[in-house]
C-alpha cells in the first residue's frame, strides 16, 4: 500500500485532526449505535443480576470466579497498551510514536475503568462495597492489607489516577486550541480544562518535563499492577496457580493483548475518521513488530509454565494440566495457542504480510486468544481443586455472556465519545515531529492593546 506522506501545512494538519470533532461521519454513528446496544444489553443483564442475586450467574462451588474475573484480568491487561507503549516510546525517544500516543493513553484509561468495575459487580451486593473502605466503623471490619485483593485496590487506583493524569497532561495544549476555536458552552468547558494555557515557552518547558517525569513513574506502576493482579492467583496454593512465573507471565500477556487492542483501535479510527495521512503503514509495521515480539515472549512463558507442570507430574497439577491439554478445555487451549502464536507469529514475521490488514487480522486473533487464555488460567484450576470430592464444572449463563459483550460495547462507546470531544491524535506532538521547514508558521509581534505587526 502506498505510504502516504504526512501533510506538512500547519493549518491543514489542525483542520484534519479536528475534523472528527465536527464531522465524524456515518462510521462513527454506526459504531456508537452498535456499541450502545451492547451496553444496553449489559445494563439489562446487570439489573436482572442486582434484583435476583448472583445465583443467576453460572458460578457455584467450587468455581467461585469465572467470567467476572476473566473480564477483570482481561481489561486490566488491555490497559497496559496505552501507558506502557506511550511511556516507553516517549522515554526511548521513538519519533514514530507521535500519532499513536493519545490513542494508546485513552485505551488505558477506559480499559482500566471497565476492569475496575468487576470487583464491585462480583460482590453480589455491590451497594455495600463501601464496607471495604478503611474508615472507623462499628462493623468490626478492617482491610486485610496482607491480601493480594487489598493490594489490587491500591495498585489499580494508583494506575487509574496516574493514567488519567498522563492522558490529561499532553492534552492541555490541544484543549487550549479547542478553546480558541470554539464558542459558547464548549469554549467555557475547554477553557476550564486547559487551565488558562497560553503556549508560552515556559509552559511548554514545564509541560514536557512533567510528561517525561510521568512517563518514568508510570512504567513501574504499570508493571506492578498486572504483577499484583497475577498474585491474586499465584499467592494461593491451587494447582497451576501457585507459580513464581505468574508475575512476568501476566505482564507479558497484558502488553501483548494491549498492543493488539491498540492496533485495532488505530485501524478503526484511521478508517472511520479518514486519517490515512497520519496513521500510516509504518506505524502498523512498527507495532506489528512489537506484537510479534510479544507473541514469541508469550509462547515462551506458556511453554515454560506447562512444561514445568508436566515434568513435575504432581497429581493435582496433572489433573488440571490434562483437562486443558487433552480434556474438556482442550479446544479452548489449542485455540488460544493458534490465535496467540500459530497464526499471528508467521503473519507478522513475514514483511509482505505485515500490512495494515495483516496486523489487524493478527490483532483480532490475539485479543480473542488472550481472552480465552485468561479464562483458561482461572476456570480449569477452580473446577479441579486439590480434593477430588470437591471437583465441579462451570457453564456461563446469558447474564455473564451479556456482561462480557457489554464490556466490549462500553469500551468502544467510551472511546468513540472521547474521539468526538478531543483530538485522538495529539496535534502539537504531531507538528513537533515534522521536519524543519514544514511547519509553515507565521510570526507575529505584538504589545498588548497595541497594533500587531507581522514579521
Amino acid at each position: 500500500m502506498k505510504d502516504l506522506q504526512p501533510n506538512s501545512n500547519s493549518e491543514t494538519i489542525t483542520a484534519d485532526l479536528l475534523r472528527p470533532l465536527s464531522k465524524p461521519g456515518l462510521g462513527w454513528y454506526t459504531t456508537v449505535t452498535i456499541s450502545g446496544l451492547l451496553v444496553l444489553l449489559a445494563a439489562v443483564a446487570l439489573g436482572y443480576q442486582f434484583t435476583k442475586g448472583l445465583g443467576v450467574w453460572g458460578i457455584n462451588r467450587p468455581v467461585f470466579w469465572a467470567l467476572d474475573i476473566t473480564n477483570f484480568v482481561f481489561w486490566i491487561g488491555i490497559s497496559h497498551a496505552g501507558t506502557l507503549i506511550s511511556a516507553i516510546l516517549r522515554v526511548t525517544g521513538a519519533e514514530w510514536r507521535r500519532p499513536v500516543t493519545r490513542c494508546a493513553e485513552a485505551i488505558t484509561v477506559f480499559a482500566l475503568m471497565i476492569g475496575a468495575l468487576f470487583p464491585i459487580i462480583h460482590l453480589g451486593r455491590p451497594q455495600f462495597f463501601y464496607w471495604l473502605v478503611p474508615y472507623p466503623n462499628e462493623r468490626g471490619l478492617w482491610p486485610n492489607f496482607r491480601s493480594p485483593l487489598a493490594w489490587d485496590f491500591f495498585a489499580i487506583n494508583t494506575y487509574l489516577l496516574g493514567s488519567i493524569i498522563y492522558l490529561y497532561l499532553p492534552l492541555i495544549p490541544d484543549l487550549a486550541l479547542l478553546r480558541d476555536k470554539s464558542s459558547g458552552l464548549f469554549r467555557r468547558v475547554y477553557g476550564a480544562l486547559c487551565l488558562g494555557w497560553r503556549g508560552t515557552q515556559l509552559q511548554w518547558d514545564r509541560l514536557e518535563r512533567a510528561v517525561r517525569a510521568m512517563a518514568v513513574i508510570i512504567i513501574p506502576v504499570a508493571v506492578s499492577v498486572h504483577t499484583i493482579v497475577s498474585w491474586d492467583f499465584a499467592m494461593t496454593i491451587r494447582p497451576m496457580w501457585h507459580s513464581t512465573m505468574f508475575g512476568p507471565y501476566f505482564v507479558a500477556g497484558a502488553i501483548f493483548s494491549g498492543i493488539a487492542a491498540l492496533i485495532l483501535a488505530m485501524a478503526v479510527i484511521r478508517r472511520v475518521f479518514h486519517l490515512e495521512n497520519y496513521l500510516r503503514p509504518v506505524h502498523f509495521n512498527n507495532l506489528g513488530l512489537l506484537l510479534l515480539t510479544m507473541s514469541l515472549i508469550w509462547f515462551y512463558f506458556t511453554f515454560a509454565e506447562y512444561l514445568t507442570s508436566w515434568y513435575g507430574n504432581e497429581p493435582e497439577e496433572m489433573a488440571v494440566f490434562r483437562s486443558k491439554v487433552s480434556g474438556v478445555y482442550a479446544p479452548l487451549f489449542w485455540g488460544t495457542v493458534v490465535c496467540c502464536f500459530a497464526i499471528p507469529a508467521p503473519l507478522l514475521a513475514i514483511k509482505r504480510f505485515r500490512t495494515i490488514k495483516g496486523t489487524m487480522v493478527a490483532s483480532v486473533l490475539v485479543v480473542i486468544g488472550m481472552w480465552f487464555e485468561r479464562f483458561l488460567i482461572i476456570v480449569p484450576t477452580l473446577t479441579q481443586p486439590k480434593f477430588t470430592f470437591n471437583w465441579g464444572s462451570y457453564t456461563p449463563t446469558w447474564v455473564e455472556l451479556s456482561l462480557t459483550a457489554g464490556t466490549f460495547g462500553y469500551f468502544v462507546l467510551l472511546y468513540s465519545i472521547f474521539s468526538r470531544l478531543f483530538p485522538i491524535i495529539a496535534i502539537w506532538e504531531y507538528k513537533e515531529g515534522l521536519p524543519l521547514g514544514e511547519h509553515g508558521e507565521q510570526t507575529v509581534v505584538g504589545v498588548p492593546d497595541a497594533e500587531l505587526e507581522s514579521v
Partner: protein
Amino acid sequence: MAALQQLERDGVPKSAITVMSSEPLHLECEGPKTRIPLFGIIGGLLGAAFAILLTVWTSKRVGLVTGGMPIVSPWAFGIIVFELAALGAILMTLGRMVVEARLARRGRGSDYGKMVAEGKIVIEIDPGATKG
C-alpha cells in the same frame, strides 16, 4: 529566530519578551530552574509515609487476634507503600507543573489565543519591562 534577534538588537530586554506558540519551540527558557523532579521525589516520600501510617498504624490499632503471629508484614505492606509512593509522586509532579507553568490562575487570558491556535508564533512584548 530572526524576529527575536532583531528585538534584542533594538534593545528590548529578554524579560520583556514572551513567545507563544502552538507547539514547543525549544527556545532557551528564562526563569528559575525547575523543581518538578524534586517535588516528585518529595511526593513519593509523602505517599510512602502515608501508606506506612495507613497500613501499620491502623492494623495495630484494630487489635486483631493473631495468636502471636506478627500483625505487620513488611513484604505485604511494602507493596502498598510502593503504590502510594508512586501516587504521591504523580500528584506532586502534576501540582508542581501547574504552579511552575503558572496555570490555573485568575485574570486576563492571552490576547493572542486565536492567532496561536491558527499556528502563528506570537511574540508579546511587555511595555512596562521595556521602560527605563
